């Protein structure tokens, strides 16, 4: 079955020995695309260590077939070795569509493989759909999200695209789903000497509550200022939420770091409540938060573009509202 040309592929990615969330999110969208095309959905896992667990997880989230490349030569992870293996797999199985998570590794792998296959690749898609005439329609933000552009790949195959974490919703896990598993070795690496050597991998524990999982995100922009920033943390704490930020606030050094930045070059979030303070609402930021549930924004500039994407607007200084709101929340909780 995986040999059937024309299938839809998702290239699985691991994060701390588990299948990455972005892969599961992609499976949901890929399932829709595969159903629309009437083709099977295949997931390739490289490297496929503790592969059996991964395969079950992928099938439960929508994969029909899983190809596991279990090979010590793929450890530690390197882009060049993975790209060689994936290029060979794609040439042999001839999928129609190949989707990648747009992590640092996924972006690099997709670009490398696209160059080797001389095919088209779009990056950071915010939507994917199949059109009878156009094929895979890949919607990407341009100029930081001021406009979205469709990207098509009319002739070269496969059609390839990457999608950032948080853009699509993760499908429900269905333990009753069944699928086939194909185990392979990376025989293409026979005799290959990598010109690079990954000597050390340093990965911090991700924050306790990553933005993607928070139901409430309190977001600070440049309008908050360094002195009032801690109020965002306190309010997020009371709401059991997380603090996000914009690029200007990150650049000022007020924030916990780049992993809290929302926007085209940062996180894509869809919390139940987004509450922004001093956020101007640049297109870059809006792309990363537009699918949030309820959006509340506080900004002293009535013309701020952020109000165009808000359900509730407060035209006031963030610094004035923050302490009052914190007190009100505490009062309500009876603290």
């Amino acid at each position, binding site marked *: 079955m995986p040999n059937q040309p024309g299938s839809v592929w998702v290239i699985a990615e691991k994060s701390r020995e588990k299948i990455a969330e972005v892969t599961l999110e992609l499976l949901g969208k890929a399932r829709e695309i595969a159903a629309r095309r009437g083709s099977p959905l295949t997931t390739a896992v490289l490297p496929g260590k503790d592969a059996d667990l991964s395969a079950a997880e992928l099938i439960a989230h929508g994969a029909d077939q899983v190809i596991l490349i279990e090979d010590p030569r793929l450890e530690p992870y390197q882009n060049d070795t993975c790209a060689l293996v994936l290029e060979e797999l794609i040439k042999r199985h001839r999928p129609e569509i190949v989707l990648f998570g747009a*992590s*640092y590794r996924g*972006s*690099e792998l997709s*670009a*490398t493989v*696209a*160059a080797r296959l001389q*095919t*088209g*690749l*779009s*990056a950071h898609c915010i939507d994917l759909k199949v059109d009878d005439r*156009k094929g895979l329609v890949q919607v990407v933000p*341009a*100029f*930081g999200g*001021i*406009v*979205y*552009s*469709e*990207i*098509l*790949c009319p002739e070269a195959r496969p059609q390839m695209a990457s999608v950032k974490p948080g853009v699509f919703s993760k499908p429900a896990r269905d333990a009753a789903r069944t699928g086939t598993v194909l185990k392979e070795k990376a025989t293409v690496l026979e005799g290959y000497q990598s*010109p*690079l*050597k*990954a*000597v*050390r*991998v*340093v*990965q*911090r524990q*991700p924050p306790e509550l990553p933005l993607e999982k928070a139901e*409430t995100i309190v977001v600070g922009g440049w309008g908050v200022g360094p002195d009032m920033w801690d109020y965002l943390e306190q309010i997020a704490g009371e709401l*059991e*939420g997380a603090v996000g930020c914009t690029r200007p606030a990150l650049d000022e050094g007020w924030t916990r770091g780049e992993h809290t930045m929302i926007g*085209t070059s940062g996180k894509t979030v869809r919390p*139940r*409540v987004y*509450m922004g303070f001093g956020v101007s609402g640049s*297109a*870059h930021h*809006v792309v990363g938060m537009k699918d949030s*549930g*309820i959006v*509340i924004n506080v900004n002293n500039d009535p013309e701020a573009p952020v109000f*165009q*994407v*808000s*359900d509730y*607007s*407060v035209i006031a200084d963030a610094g004035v*509202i923050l302490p*009052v*709101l914190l007190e009100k*929340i505490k009062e*309500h909780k009876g603290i």
Partner: protein
Amino acid sequence: MNIAVCVKPVPDPGHYNRITINPETKLLDRKGIPVIINPVDKNAIEAALQLKEQFGGKVVLVSMAPPDAGEILKEALAMGVDEAYLLSDRAFAGSDTLATAKILAAGLKKIGQLDLILTGSESADSGTNHVPSQLGELLGLPHLNHITELSLELPVLKMKAKIENGYVEYEGSLPMVLGVAREINTPRYTTLMGVVMAQKKPFTIWGLNDLGLDPAGTGLSGSPTQPGDLLFPRHGRKAEILEGEPEAVAGKIVAILRGAGVLP
């Protein structure tokens, strides 16, 4: 040590909110938006200049851009780059990342004798971050993207590449293609002396024929991806204004938070 830096002129990201769309032609109106060197490409220039200061040699700039990009590239020359090559031809218009990488690779091959090729990890306008990897592939050289640290202890090149919540340390050797991240350094400013000297530095323009490229392999016709329709984000939020004194506004927000179920 000869280093090439690939840079892209882009509309200044600080002005993107001023870009409008002509409702009839559906084309973007970028009038009045200044064009600058893609910000992270300046970090690549800085990294190259620091290596040159350490090991000698020269730094050359390569850019695929319209002919009027010359003035912008002069800024890189003023930072200390030794010479610039502008790859410019009508046939290059509409190039996607793969076609762009092809054209840059042809320019770099023609320059020849390069030990290291640096570029920014991604551009501000389209931001695909594909070009560093694709350039490496087309040149047949090892490549890495998102480099946050770089040091050369001949013959070993040591690099740190970003991953989510961390980094990977790599060792490799020259020649190589690297995409640098903004964390790698702080680009230097141009000096008045630099600006004066930039006027006298070699500046070469190469077109399709100079590079020996096939017109069918470049520009829109040489790009596997093609642009489809432009879509305009419509967010359609209700934009209710919460009015009143801070105390009253805070009360209204608390009620909304309760309604959303994030506050008991």
